[in-house]
């Protein structure tokens, strides 16, 4: 078993806006291309050109449709990656200490050198946010692009996770959720940001901004002041004179 830090002052994480996410998968693929060449082993693709291709992704988007009791169908695009929980069961379950949560910023990482691919952590994660790479046999997960966010070889403005930098709709935000004055914390406060499955007691750092209420069209109508073309033309003559 592996221990968690008591608490971390800095809580780096993502804020994902479900009102804005159009489900384009830009974050999914940007994450894949950055991480397959950076932290740890590559993210492999098994049967890549065959009947059932299965690759390792650290971030996936699912779309869910729901019919409310009244009104029309609602669809939510739901990106999901590791939520860097404060009480991360994937860490405490790890028999080798490969899974750990960093004291300095709260990022949950896997030290691949120590990972034996037992899969306990994936089993313990209520969000299904970890994937065991089929070829390399090690557990892969979101690193919050730990090799980008402090990287002095990258322009300062780009020191954010790859998924955040690429998101076309600006639906992904990165920052310190441990600092109540940070931009992300303010956004969460303003928009009623939520924990995913709080009942699991994992205290996720990542937050989701809920979709705004949709499909509440107004009952406004325009007054048909001109019933006939002749009436309209008479009004128009006067209106034009006033211009």
């Amino acid at each position, binding site marked *: *078993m*592996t221990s968690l830090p008591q608490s971390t002052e800095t809580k780096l994480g993502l804020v994902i*806006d479900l009102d804005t996410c*159009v*489900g*384009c*998968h*830009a974050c*999914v*693929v940007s994450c*894949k*291309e950055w*991480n*397959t*060449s*950076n932290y740890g082993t*590559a993210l*492999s*693709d098994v*049967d890549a*050109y*065959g009947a*059932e*291709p299965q*690759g390792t*992704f650290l971030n996936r988007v699912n779309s869910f449709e729901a019919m409310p009791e009244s009104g*029309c*169908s*609602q*669809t939510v695009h739901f990106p999901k990656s590791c939520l860097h929980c404060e009480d991360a069961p994937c860490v405490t379950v790890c028999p080798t*200490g*490969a899974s*750990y949560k960093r004291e*300095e910023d709260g990022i949950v990482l896997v030290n691949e*050198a120590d990972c034996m691919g037992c899969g306990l952590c994936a089993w313990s994660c209520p969000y299904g946010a970890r994937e065991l790479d089929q070829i390399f046999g090690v557990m892969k997960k979101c690193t919050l692009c730990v090799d980008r966010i*402090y990287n*002095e*070889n*990258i322009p300062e403005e*780009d020191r954010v996770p*790859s998924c955040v930098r*690429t*998101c076309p*709709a600006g639906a992904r935000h990165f920052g310190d959720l441990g600092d109540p004055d940070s931009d992300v914390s303010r956004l969460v406060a303003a928009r009623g940001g939520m924990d995913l499955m709080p009942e699991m007691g994992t205290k996720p750092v990542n937050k989701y901004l809920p979709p*705004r209420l*949709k*499909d509440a069209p107004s009952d*406004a109508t*325009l007054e*048909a*002041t*001109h019933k*006939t*073309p002749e009436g*309209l033309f008479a*009004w*128009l*003559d006067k209106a*034009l*004179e006033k211009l």
Partner: protein
Amino acid sequence: MAMSKNKVPARPSPKVSDEIRQTTCYMCACRCGINVHMQDGKVKYIEGNKNHPVNKGVLCAKGSAGIMQHYAPSRLKAPMKRVGPRGSGEFEEISWDEAYDIAAGWLGPIRETAPEKLAFFTGRDQSQSFTSLWAQAFGTPNYAAHGGFCSVNMAAAGIYTMGGAFWEFGQPDWDRTKLFMIFGVAEDHDSNPIKIGLGKLKERGARVIGVNPIRSGYNAIADDWVGITPGTDGLFIMALIHELIKAGQIDLNYLTRYTNAGFLVNCADTGPDAGLFLRDENGTAQVLDQATGKPAPYDGKSVKPKLTGHFRKAGDTYRPAFELLAEAYMSDSYAPEAVEERCGIPARRIRAIAADLARVAFEEEIVIDQPWTDWKGEKHDQMIGRPVSFHAMRGISAHSNGFQTCRALHILQILLGSVEVPGGFRFKPPYPKPPEAHPKPHAGHAPNQPLDGPHLGYPLGPEHLLLDDAGNPKRIDKAFSWENPFSAHGLMHMVISNAHAGVPYKIDTLFMYMANMAWNSSMNTSSVIEMLTDKDENGDYVIPHIIYSDAYSSETVAYSDLILPDTTYLERHDCISLLDRPICEAEAVADAIRWPVVEPDRNVKGFQSALCDLGAKLGLPGFVNEDGSQKYADYADYITSHERRPGVGPLAGFRGDGSESGRGAPNPQQIDKYIENGGFWSEHLPDDAQFYKPWNQSYQDWAVRIGLFDKAAPYVFNLYLEPLRKIQLAAEGYGDRQPPEHLRAQLKKAMTPLPHWYAPFEQEIVSEEDYPLHALTQRPMHMYHSWGSQNAWLRQITGVNKLFVPGGVWEEHGFEDGDWAYVTSPHGRIKAPVARMDGVNGKTLWTWNAIGKKRGAWALSDDAQEATEGFLLNHLINELLPPKGDGLRWANSDPVTGQAAWFDLRVRIEKAPKGGPSEPTLKAQKSPVGQGPKDVTYGDDF
């Protein structure tokens, strides 16, 4: 307690790459700027270029998957000649010299005798200003790209109505608009800019209304979703216009100043001038001047037109076009109650949307304190805007009533005064550009001669149609004929069918680039395959020769005789030119390049460079020097040294000594300058030129300076479109050029100078009882046409397309998860896996486009899910309508532009036995490039 000792440093700072090379993406048609990170000579990581005008740093799923496209196992390796029967996929690799010899052996004799026997169609070409120049030099009239089966209705309606449509033509004022309506969009078109824009609207809390039978993507996040019945968008828009006019909620000042609302129209019932404008001896249209009440030229300096009244001359009555417009749309037939059932939208909702548009446009106007001067010399202290904006694309355009629907949308924008104003819709240079400023189509051909002018353009009346002395179409696709007079982009989707039928004539060689016409880019895929493989009584192919250029092992490769292998987008030169499909922003003019950030490791060549070689070998004028030697060593040489007009070339930036913009002598170092600048060039418009571009003196002067045109050319918007009326007059029997009898009724009905709604043609012919449902396709945001499936990453996102069935239909048929269905149209039947969806119009089935693949194509395994479960709806759609019983076969196209009416499809559905494969099941083709590796571990080397 175990604790790891091999952790990464607290603040890791690894090297990212050896070098960043900045070029332009080609994973779809958006043309975003990209930073390609190179390591050890390989592509390591691709990200958006933050300085680039199109994407401003962001990048979509396709763009980020560019690595897998660049290294795809489906890449062609060398020129090939076919050695087995067409369709078999059996090829032999040959040298480029042999490939050119074969091509010249077919094309040389054609040029010497009958250049029209070459049909050269270039698909999703981003170099049309170059490929059209080549076709012009060859002398064939048969050239176009893919617009005819894409969105020509949108483009042509926009040009004819206001000098530009959406996407490359213009964009919403994303930073100021308060209410945005988006109609029927293919989510891979203009995708990053729209997503960036939607993000801005969401951040500001601006409202988004999505009008689309299907609630996916953008429509899912829209504040209001209007699940309209396919083909009725025009009716819905006209009902909005009905409401606005009846309430007097229109921008009168705007209409008098910037539109032809005041132009006097001859209101005679019949006669050669009925419906035409009153013109003076100079041909200038006349308006009733408010000051005098008398006719005056519309462009007179102090002339302010009346929108009402009448004028009599020589026994005819003339009335302002606005009166006709108001009468047309105030008609009860466009009342919300009259259209609600057909549109599938309650009248109450239509009224509310009209009221919301009016409220935002007129009660929430935007004022910018920026003085400007208009085309009549009047000075204005401010720029006043109506912050409602619109965007539309294929969904409203790919119908047989699409042109008039697109026109209606522009008329709605104009009545609200929301075009080229703050908060509204803004043109992107070189647009606005009215129809008069575009070329006219040309088809004058003769042996050994170049064509007499550019192929494509905007006809203004029957005199510009491309007809021979007998009245027959001059082009193989019958563009610019009475069947579709304003077919501004040609009709690529009719070429194979017409060439096979030998109507209007037989051709010798079909030469295509980058369009998967043997598969997802054709209607009627199974029949097209039969046409491509059909033989005559001598055992020769009915279409004698097919040359095809593609970078990848597509379905169409297998049906071709000679393959010219193209490079990937990271291995090539290209220019994203102002002479072509531009990438400007409303506030800035821009163009860009591609350059080989990686050299090809195979025997392939950029198609445009191959055309430089082939053009020289054929001795085409403009492609050889005076001594007969090759003029352009390759495409890069053409890009830097070609001048279209003196001082104006393919790239506008860094001309002359490198400091000149727009106009200037060719600069041999131009491409290097672009590379230094991040792969693009951009220049901002002056502040007082930002809005009102068609009527803004500062904009007009700037456009002349930069070389967009040679003299200021202000114009007004065409609410009433006189060129359409001229075609109608011909159909009524007036004029020298007369349509064939059988087309007169259709022309009278479709070519109305004010848009009217008519039911889509297929719907008129088939019975609702037999085919009660509509069927549509959409493209996912993460795939571009057929390209996504060869991409190891993208095909994991969508490898199978289900047929989505609305809840009501699902329950009526008792479908369950995992079921399969037969879908039958008047033309054919397919078998497909189904899934329930409730966020869809209740009468509409739909699926993702181009996911289904033929076995053996794209270097996929024979049991790839795209081939076993994926399917195409195309098999159900014919390029001809079902027989009407009049002995004729009518095109399944818009009668104005010839746009393929993909979305008019009517079908029925029934349960099928569970399980695949999807049907029709076609014979596999042999892969000329083998199959991809079992597993991929890209990135393991770095």
